[in-house]
Each structure stands twice: as structure tokens, then as C-alpha cells.
């Protein structure tokens, strides 16, 4: 039967759904795993970056003589020494080093290469820059004011994506419009308007960004870095250096945490220009202070929601306005308003929508793509308001949600049509697990929140090869960023070929040795690379079974693959080792190799609903509900999370333990943003420089977390899987804010819910009542 040879449709075998240990786990747990900072290249020099102390200033002069005179220094470069080429994902607005103007505290101004790190540090400190400070804009509101300084005076001359909406300090905007929102609001029995704000939070990866750039014969630039997107780095480097991408080999090293912070080019370009100048390999490892000053943390957002509701609790219309603080350059920011609009609409049936999100340049570091970018901010606003409305209407927040959530076959905000929607199950399971509606002690409270998210599309391709010893190699352009996604991919591949998972070796993320992959981002790795691996497995399987049929004198349709052998169904004693089939293939035609490709099918949507959009629909969407129990100290405002429950539709749990790891990690990060984390600023000056200033939660701050996996298969994921990596971080701030309100009756609409803010809200409530 055909299904047996069609890998993409062959049924799941014993490896699917099993919590096999992650392939890199042993080495990571025992300290043997090589991370980016462990990589050294013979003869390398050490680079160091001199950075701007001002948020906005004109560079009057740079004197590099003292730096150059430092013993051990080989070269110093400034922006003026480089050809003026700009890079950026949707708008090319950034140069490798600042030219004439600095636009944020921490912007690279010059770079040094030296024989030793110590000399590089010394020399970088001796670069003398004369600045004329200029007025800075520190918030989107300030940047949008008439007469505000333009962060990029020459913005009209920049190369940008033709669909990108830009205007002065606006570097991206997207809308969703549907129905007739003003009529919808006019017809509603109640209209609720609320404003929410969030502050920037950092991915807080423990390994700083690192790159080693070397020019190798015959003129190939080889860069080792802990990037999530080697192919993006390849394109950017080729562009900046004026060489063909085929001459740029970016190899992703082990990655010590990324969470979206290592998507965009970080330090590769600076290492590359230094290496080019000195003709030797150059390594740059950033410090944590640099990571806090000049990375891609999560955007601060300001969100206004106007929601119209009928007396019976049916939502009829919603208007949303959101501003993202992009920082001084585009980076990920121009494309993210699109994503924000979908989260702001929420997983609800709302006939009339008018949603608008805008990214605005300010004189701060370039905020970027932290795990589920814009998700937590938007869900915090939407789900806090859902609770607020429910309470104002004296409805149970769970009931109010159930009355309005999207269901099977419904239309999404931009007109995409959903298949099965598991949100009711998620809400009910999370509520049951937290004991929703049960009596509670004083100052204890429970909160619910739900959301939805995408499985990012984009192409994936793999090469596969079976070896004569019965093992296999799978080469993917996707990096393993620590989620274990590539273990799941190995599982999927091994399952289709009846191999033990340990027999699969993965080669990953090398722009000249592995095929193109859209990369480790957007909850897509298991989904997309898994599908490509299934295609490659199907091809190899077809070849293996064809040859084995000859050897075993059986029909292909009677053959099965198990434990590294091909056997005849019904007569398992008639079997041949996979290795023998490989040897036969070598004699016949040179070996057993294959490739597989995949690109997620486009999700149809209504084009007239959206404008300025780069992400008009959520592919293979996942739905999730979170529930939290907290206790609040009524005198200090301190919130302690006691229990936390996540019910998430994962489509198919390829490896349940890995998914639980994603859920627990995401929740911890989400709780950090909910309660304590923020990169504080004074004006445009950051006040956080290290992990002492930054309040990342620690073990003792984290409650028990329960993961409930719902498996409603997606149409296009391997075995029905959906993206799982990002969703867990989206909902905690809202769930916690709702639980705090339940505990003490105080509503905090600004993140984080610091003790001080909670206390102020409690007192405000008391004063209001008095």
C-alpha cells in the first residue's frame, strides 16, 4: 500500500510522543558542551567595541592615536573608515559603526583589534570621542510630537520594503479593520476604555553574543557565532562587505540561550570588518553590560483598548491603538506591529474591529524580538481588560470568556478560517486545575487568561544520509537554540525510518554546508524542520524498501522498517540489516542520500482587512489558557505566585518532556515580566547594567507549574504538531494581574506589578472607596 512508502503520511511509530532525552542533554549537564564562547580559532585577535555614552549626539571628532599606541593593539576602526553601507531587516537604517551621529547609549562608535583582550579593553577606553550632545526623544509619544527631533533625518533616503509604512519617526505600522467599529461601539450597551503600559524586558540569555570572523582562502568569510539565524547573518554580512552571499560561511556554535535576542546581527559584522582590516581572525565576546545596553530586548508598549459589549456579555466591537518603542533602529520593530494587531484582536469573535499598532523610533537601544514578540504586552492588555469588563458586568471571568471565544470553523480577526479550536477545553482544564470558583483565604486570589499564537512559516530543507553502520546523518540549516527542537526532529526522522533516535546525528546551521532554513524562530523548528525531515525520510525509505524488496524477494508493500532492519510483514525472520541495504546502494548507484523540503502552506485571509501587514494570519494557530494563584502582602504589595497552570494546544506532543520544559521556562520568563523585570530608564539613559540591577526571577521565586497538554492536530505540522515554544511566555502577566485583582481588589495596568505599584493600586482603591 502506498501509505507505507509515503513518509509524510506514514503513521506515527513508537518514537512519536515519547520523552526521549534530548540529544545534547548529557553534554550540557556535564559541562562538556561547547558554547559560542568556547570556540577559538588559531591566530585570532581580540576585538572590543567603544560605545556611545549619549542617547543622541553629534560626533565632532574621534582621536584614535592613544588607542593605537596601546601595546598589543593591531587596528582601530571608526565609522568613517568603512564604506557607508546600511543594514536592517525591513528598512536599512543602521551602519556597522556610528557615522557622525550617535543615536543611543551603547551604540558602537569604534572597534579595536588587539593581541590580547586586556589590550583591547585598554585601547577601547582610550579612544577619545568629542561629542556635541543633542536633544533626545525617549518615548514614542515624545517622538510623535510635532517638532520632535527626527531620529533619522535622512529616513526618506533609506532602502525599505515597499509595503512598509514609514513617516518621520514612525518606522512601521499595521492595521486590521473589519465591520464598522464606530457603529459597533455606538450600538454596544457598554464601552470600556482602558490604557495599559509595559516596560522593556531582556531575554537574559546567560551567554553573551560572540563572533569569530576569519577570511579563509579562496576569499570566504567564515564566521562562527551564536546566532539564531545564520542565513540572515550571511545575507547581511555579504551586503555590508560587498561580497556574494555564497562567499560567506556562517556557522552557528552552541547557543547559551537566545530567546529571540540572537536573531538579528549582533557582533558578527563588527568582527568581520575588523578581520578584513587586519587580515587575521578576530573574536569579539560582549560583556553583560553591553548586552543590557545594546541588544534586542522586548519593546515597551502603550496600549489603549476600547471595547463595546452588550448587556448579555457579548463583545461587539473593539478599537485598539498600540505604540511600540522601537529604539533607534528598525531591527525587528517594523514588522512587529503586524503581529501585535492579531494578539490585540485576541482569540474572540468580534464582528467590528479597528486595530492599529505603530513602531516608533526613539533614542534608545533597538528593541526586538524576545520570544513571542509583542505577545505578552498585547495579551496583558487584552486579558486584563477582559477581566475588568467581566467584573464591571458582574460576570464570572471564565464565563465571559467562554461566551466570546472563537470556536471550530470561526473566522479570525483578519479573515483566516480556523479548523478545530481547542480554547474552551484549555480554559476549562486550566480553571479546573487551579480550583476556579472555590473559596479562598484572605489576600489569596486566582486569575485566568488566554491567548493565541502562530507557528511561523518559512522554508526548511534538510539533507539526509544513511551510513553503512546503520546510523544516519541529518543536516539542517536550523540551529538548536536550546529548546531541544532538533531532538524532536531527530525523533521524527528516526521514527519514519525505524531507527533508534541515538542513531541519528544532526549537523546544523552552517550556511555553506547545510541547506537554507528560515531558522530557529517563531515556534517553527520542530514544525518546519520536522516536516522537511519527514520528506527526506520518505525518500530514503522509498529507496531502502526498493532495494530490500529485491534482497528479500518480497513486495515493497509487504515490508516494514524497525530497529534498523527491513523485515517482511508476517514473516519477521525474513529481514535485512539497514547497513547491508546501504552497502548495496553504494555498489548500485553510490549511496543512500536524500533531501527533503517544506514550506508552510499560506494561510488564506481577507486582504482588504489588513494594511501595512507582514504577518496577516497566524499559521497552524495554537490556543492556550493560563491560571495562577497568588498571595499578596497587603502592607508591602509583594505578590507571591503560589501555583501556576498552563493548558496549551500543542497539536501533537512529539516529546512531552521537552514541551513541559518549554512551558515551564516560558512561564518563569512571563512571571519575571509580570512581577519584577524591567530595564529601567531615566529619560533615554538605561539604569540597568547587569544581573544585579536586573531582577530576573530565581528558583525561590518560582511556583509549582502544572502543564496540561492538549492535542488537537494541526493540518500541516508533522504528526499534527503545532508550534509550542513561544506561547507559554505570552499569558503570565495577564494571569497574574487578574489574580492580584482577585486577591486584593486592586487593578494594576502597568507592567511589572512591582510591590510598589500593587500597594499604590490598593491604596488608590481604598481612597476611592472612602
Amino acid at each position, binding site marked *: 500500500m502506498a501509505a507505507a512508502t509515503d513518509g509524510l503520511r506514514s503513521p506515527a511509530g513508537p518514537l512519536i510522543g515519547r520523552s526521549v532525552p534530548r540529544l545534547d542533554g548529557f553534554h550540557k549537564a556535564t559541562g562538556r558542551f561547547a558554547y559560542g564562547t568556547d570556540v577559538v580559532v588559531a591566530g585570532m585577535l581580540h576585538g572590543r567595541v567603544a560605545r556611545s555614552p549619549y542617547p543622541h549626539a553629534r560626533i565632532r571628532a574621534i582621536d584614535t592615536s592613544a588607542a593605537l599606541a596601546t601595546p598589543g593593539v593591531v587596528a582601530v576602526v571608526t565609522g568613517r573608515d568603512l564604506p557607508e553601507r546600511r543594514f536592517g531587516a525591513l528598512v536599512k537604517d543602521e551602519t556597522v559603526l556610528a557615522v557622525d551621529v550617535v543615536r543611543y547609549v551603547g551604540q558602537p562608535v569604534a572597534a579595536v583589534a588587539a593581541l590580547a583582550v586586556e589590550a583591547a579593553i585598554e585601547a577601547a577606553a582610550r579612544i577619545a570621542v568629542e561629542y556635541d550632545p543633542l536633544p533626545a526623544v525617549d518615548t514614542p509619544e515624545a517622538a510623535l510630537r510635532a517638532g520632535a527631533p527626527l531620529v533619522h533625518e535622512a529616513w526618506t533616503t533609506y532602502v525599505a520594503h515597499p509595503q512598509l509604512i514609514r513617516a518621520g519617526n514612525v518606522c512601521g505600522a499595521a492595521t486590521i479593520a473589519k465591520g464598522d467599529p464606530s457603529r459597533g461601539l455606538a450600538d454596544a450597551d457598554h464601552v470600556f476604555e482602558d490604557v495599559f503600559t509595559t516596560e522593556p524586558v531582556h531575554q537574559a540569555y546567560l551567554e553573551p553574543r560572540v563572533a569569530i570572523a576569519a577570511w579563509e582562502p579562496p576569499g570566504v568569510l567564515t564566521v562562527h557565532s551564536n546566532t539564531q539565524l545564520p542565513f540572515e547573518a550571511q545575507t547581511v554580512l555579504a551586503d555590508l562587505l560587498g561580497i556574494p552571499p555564497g562567499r560567506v560561511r556562517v556557522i552557528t556554535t552552541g547557543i547559551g540561550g537566545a530567546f529571540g535576542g540572537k536573531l538579528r546581527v549582533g557582533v558578527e559584522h563588527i568582527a568581520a570588518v575588523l578581520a578584513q582590516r587586519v587580515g587575521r581572525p578576530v573574536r569579539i565576546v560582549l560583556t553583560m553590560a553591553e548586552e543590557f545596553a545594546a541588544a534586542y530586548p522586548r519593546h515597551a508598549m502603550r496600549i489603549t483598548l476600547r471595547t463595546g459589549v452588550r448587556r448579555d456579555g457579548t463583545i461587539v466591537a473593539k478599537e485598539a491603538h498600540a505604540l511600540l518603542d522601537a529604539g533607534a533602529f528598525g531591527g525587528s520593530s517594523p514588522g512587529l506591529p503586524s503581529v501585535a494587531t492579531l494578539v490585540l484582536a485576541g482569540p474572540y469573535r468580534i464582528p467590528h474591529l479597528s486595530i492599529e499598532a505603530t513602531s516608533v523610533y526613539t533614542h534608545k537601544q533597538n528593541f526586538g524580538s524576545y520570544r513571542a514578540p509583542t505577545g505578552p504586552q498585547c495579551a496583558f492588555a487584552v486579558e486584563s481588560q477582559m477581566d475588568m469588563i467581566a467584573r464591571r458586568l458582574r460576570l464570572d471571568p471564565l464565563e465571559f470568556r467562554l461566551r466570546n471565544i472563537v470556536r471550530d470553523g470561526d473566522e479570525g480577526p483578519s479573515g483566516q478560517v480556523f479548523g478545530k479550536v481547542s480554547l474552551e477545553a484549555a480554559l476549562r482544564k486550566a480553571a479546573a486545575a487551579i480550583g476556579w470558583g472555590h473559596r479562598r483565604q484572605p489576600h489569596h486570589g486566582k486569575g485566568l487568561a488566554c491567548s493565541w499564537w502562530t507557528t511561523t512559516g518559512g522554508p526548511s530543507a534538510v539533507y539526509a544520509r544513511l551510513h553503512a553502520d546503520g546510523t544516519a546523518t541529518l543536516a539542517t540549516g536550523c540551529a538548536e537554540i536550546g529548546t531541544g527542537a532538533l531532538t524532536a526532529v531527530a525523533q521524527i526522522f528516526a521514527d519514519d525510518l525505524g531507527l533508534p533516535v541515538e542513531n541519528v546525528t544532526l549537523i546544523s546551521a552552517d550556511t555553506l554546508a547545510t541547506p537554507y532554513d528560515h531558522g530557529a524562530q517563531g515556534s517553527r523548528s520542530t514544525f518546519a524542520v520536522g516536516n522537511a525531515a519527514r520528506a527526506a525520510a520518505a525518500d530514503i525509505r522509498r529507496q531502502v524498501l526498493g532495494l530490500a524488496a529485491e534482497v528479500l524477494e518480497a513486495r515493497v508493500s509487504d515490508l516494514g522498517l524497525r530497529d534498523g532492519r527491513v523485515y517482511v510483514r508476517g514473516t519477521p525472520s525474513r529481514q535485512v540489516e539497514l547497513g547491508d541495504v546501504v552497502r548495496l546502494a553504494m555498489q548500485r548507484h553510490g549511496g543512500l542520500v536524500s533531501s527533503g523540503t517544506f514550506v508552510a502552506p499560506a494561510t488564506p485571509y481577507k486582504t482588504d482587512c489588513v494594511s501595512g501587514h507582514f504577518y496577516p494570519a497566524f499559521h497552524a494557530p495554537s490556543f492556550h489558557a493560563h491560571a495562577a494563584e497568588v498571595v499578596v502582602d497587603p502592607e508591602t504589595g*509583594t505578590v507571591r505566585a503560589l501555583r501556576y497552570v498552563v493548558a496549551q494546544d500543542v497539536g501533537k506532543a512529539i516529546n512531552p518532556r521537552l514541551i513541559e520544559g518549554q512551558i515551564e521556562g516560558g512561564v518563569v520568563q512571563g512571571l519575571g515580566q509580570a512581577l519584577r523585570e524591567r530595564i529601567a530608564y531615566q529619560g533615554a539613559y538605561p539604569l540597568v547594567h547587569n544581573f544585579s540591577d536586573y*531582577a530576573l526571577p*530565581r528558583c525561590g521565586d518560582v511556583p509549582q507549574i502544572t502543564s496540561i497538554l492538549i492535542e488537537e492536530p494541526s493540518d500541516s505540522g508533522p504528526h499534527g504538531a503545532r508550534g509550542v515554544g513561544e506561547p507559554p511566555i505570552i499569558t503570565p502577566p495577564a494571569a497574574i494581574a487578574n489574580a492580584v485583582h482577585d486577591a486584593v481588589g486592586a487593578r494594576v495596568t502597568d507592567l511589572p506589578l512591582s510591590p510598589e505599584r500593587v500597594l499604590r493600586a490598593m491604596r488608590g482603591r481604598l481612597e476611592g472607596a472612602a
Partner: protein
Amino acid sequence: MIPAAFEYHAPASLADAVKLLGQHGDEAKILSGGQSLIPLMKLRLATPRHVVDINGIAGLDYLKEEDGVLRIGALVREADLEDSEFIRARYPLLHDTSRVVADPLVRNLATVCGNLAHADPANDHPAAMLALGAEVVATGPRGERRIAITSFFTGPFATALRGDEVLTEVRVPVPLPRSGGAYLKLERKVGDFATAAVAVQVALDPAGTCVHAGVGLTNAGTVPIKARRAEGFLRGKPLDDATVRRAGELAAEEADPVDDVRGSAAYKRDLVRVLTARALRLAAGRAGAGR
């Protein structure tokens, strides 16, 4: 994250350490637990040319009660206090304090004396020692001198120690009968420096009247603060609810906090009020339990 170049000295005796300090003056720094000094050097906020490591000096790690004082030697670590049943039972304030300094990794190395010598207004032991009425011993070229803790902290990160002196001992008077103490700290995350914290030590007479009160405040000003008005108010009163609340208010008035990433001045002042009252209740309970 690499310190500037420095010369490393590991004297085997206190006399040698003092001599090295004398030779190098302002350019020398003592290294004990290294949990403040090394990070500062890595960040290049401190760039001593000479580092004098006192960890190799024998006989500085004693922790003992003698002649009416608890003597804490220069190389006693936070973990030594934390792990000591004797300290837990007899000096609950010290035990509370050492348990909330940083995390176990730091506490295994950080010293109590270093915590005082560093004189960070956010360090936890200064307030505790102010509440306990401790004394420190400074050893220099002319031998030892004792400094009352109340005159030890002279400014942010500044103490009454001279450049050629080693802080060799902290002396804590043994508690009076029916004594109790407590340290309460509010932190943004486990192991963080205090947003604000309060140390109290009280002694009661048999009738339950407060005969001695010490109140110290952490991160409530640019230096550790001894809340004298609160202390004076408490003496001679039973530690009932109205009294501890009023003491909290007085301590809050004595606090002089500044805005920082951990909280606004107003919030910290309010925390001092709340934590003082709570710490007094806890300390009074402990004093009562020891009756």
C-alpha cells in the same frame, strides 16, 4: 569583565598584611571573601594596584562567645553563621541576616567583616550590627583599636578604618536575658540586595516591658541608619501593637532613602515603617519564647 592588572600578595601573618597595606597605601585593597571586591574589579569600578589576600592568615576564622561578647573573626563566612545552631538559637538576628545575604554560592565565601568593611548601604550586616550595638576591632601598625559600630560608617562605601588597618573582629555583646532579634528584608528576587530591610534587637523585663531596643535600617539612606528615636520610644514600654506601630512610624521618619531601580524613596520609607513593626513583633515573640 577582566580586571585591570594588579599585583597579588598573600601574606601569612596579620603583621605582614598590615605592613603591605602600609607600603602600598591607597593603592592596596584587602581581599577577604572577594564577593564585592572581585565584581568591582571586573567592572573596573575598583582598580587597586595591589591586592592583599588575607585568606591564608591562620587564626582569623573563630566564632566564639567569650567574656560577655560574641567574637566574629575576619574570616568567618556568612555560611558559618547560617549553618550554626548556636547562632540560630542565641543570635536570631544574625542568623536571619546571614540567611538573606545573596545566595549560597556567595555566602560560602563572603565574610561578615568584609560585609561591614565594604560599607555598602545596601549590605545587610551593618544594620544588624547597629541594632546589636557591636564593636569592631581594627588592627594596624600600632596594634589594635576598637571602634564602636555607631562611628564606623562614615559615608557611602566609607568607614573609620585607616588605609593600613585590617578589620580583624566584630564584637557583639551577648544578649541580655529575655532578648530576641529579627531581620526582615524586602527583595525584588531571592538573593537581591534589599529594597529596604530592618534589623531589630530587643530585651524585655519579666513583665514584658522593653528594657533595650536596637533598630538598624538597610538601604534606607546613603549610610546604614540607626533609628535612635524609635529605639528611645520603645524603651520602657510593653511591645504591644500600638507601640510597635508607632516605633515603625518613627523609624520611617528617621529613614532617608533615595530613589533607585529597587524602589522610590517614598516606598522605601513606607517599607521601613511596615518592616520595623513586623520585626519588632517577631523579635518580641522570640524574646518571650526564651523566657
